[in-house]
């Protein structure tokens, strides 16, 4: 009986640990026992379930960000000038 309770306790992880496990899982950097603990946690925690979906959503969309502001002609000329000075 006591033994079972200890078993249960060691299988319980906090939301802080669960969110880290979710992030590590993306890179397949979690052990088998961590995966079990995470699965159990997700069965009972709706916040972390949201977090899991939202984390994945963010990972996908971060890749699609781009900030474009091209180099101006003047800036290119300046670069060229500096490079030419070096080659003299």
């Amino acid at each position, binding site marked *: 009986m006591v033994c079972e309770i200890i078993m249960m306790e060691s299988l319980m992880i906090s939301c802080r*640990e669960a969110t880290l496990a979710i992030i590590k899982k993306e890179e397949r950097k979690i052990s088998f026992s961590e995966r079990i603990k995470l699965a159990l946690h997700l069965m009972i925690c709706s916040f972390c379930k949201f977090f899991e979906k939202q984390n994945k959503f963010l990972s996908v969309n*971060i*890749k*699609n960000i*781009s900030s474009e502001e091209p180099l101006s002609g003047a800036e290119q000329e300046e670069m060229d000038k500096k490079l030419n000075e070096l080659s003299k």
Partner: protein
Amino acid sequence: MINKKETNLLNPKNWVKNYSEQLFRFALQRVNDREAAKDIVQETFFAAYKNLENFKGEVSEKNWLFIILKNKIIDHYRKKTNQLFTELDECEEAFENYFDEAGHWKKETAPHNWNADYKSPVESKEFFEILNKCLQKLSELTRIAFTLKYLDEKESDEICKELMISASNYWVVIHRAKLQLRTCIEKKWFVK
């Protein structure tokens, strides 16, 4: 000093004209600072010029310049991460914004339902503007780790090596960043 084969392949006179745009765009995406990106491209040209003799012709001129550029970007990251190492000490405070002492979500910052279709790609320009703004709020070290992880799709081991940080520090940085980013997007986009 420069043998025929090499001069055939490298043409420094045309470097700026032919490659500065591409090199700059690549650098800007990764350093998030226009001036720094410009400096990195200029340094790349300088370094390339000084190393003309070392060019073996095994890769194209363009790829060769990109290899140098990537090294310059990593140098830039290392300089930054050395400066910003102290920020890791403040990490615990950041986590306290999200979790109580037992490690459970705090009410104010616990995830809400976004009522969104998480799986289909977002096409709204506005969304990306907001995502960009949220990313800008993160620390430099975090943005660097994010860039390497998501833009360059590098594995954590490689990122740790490049930035000379430990694996546990890396996970702390990424963990905290995801929490911050999630909250920011939720507040600014999903649950206004």
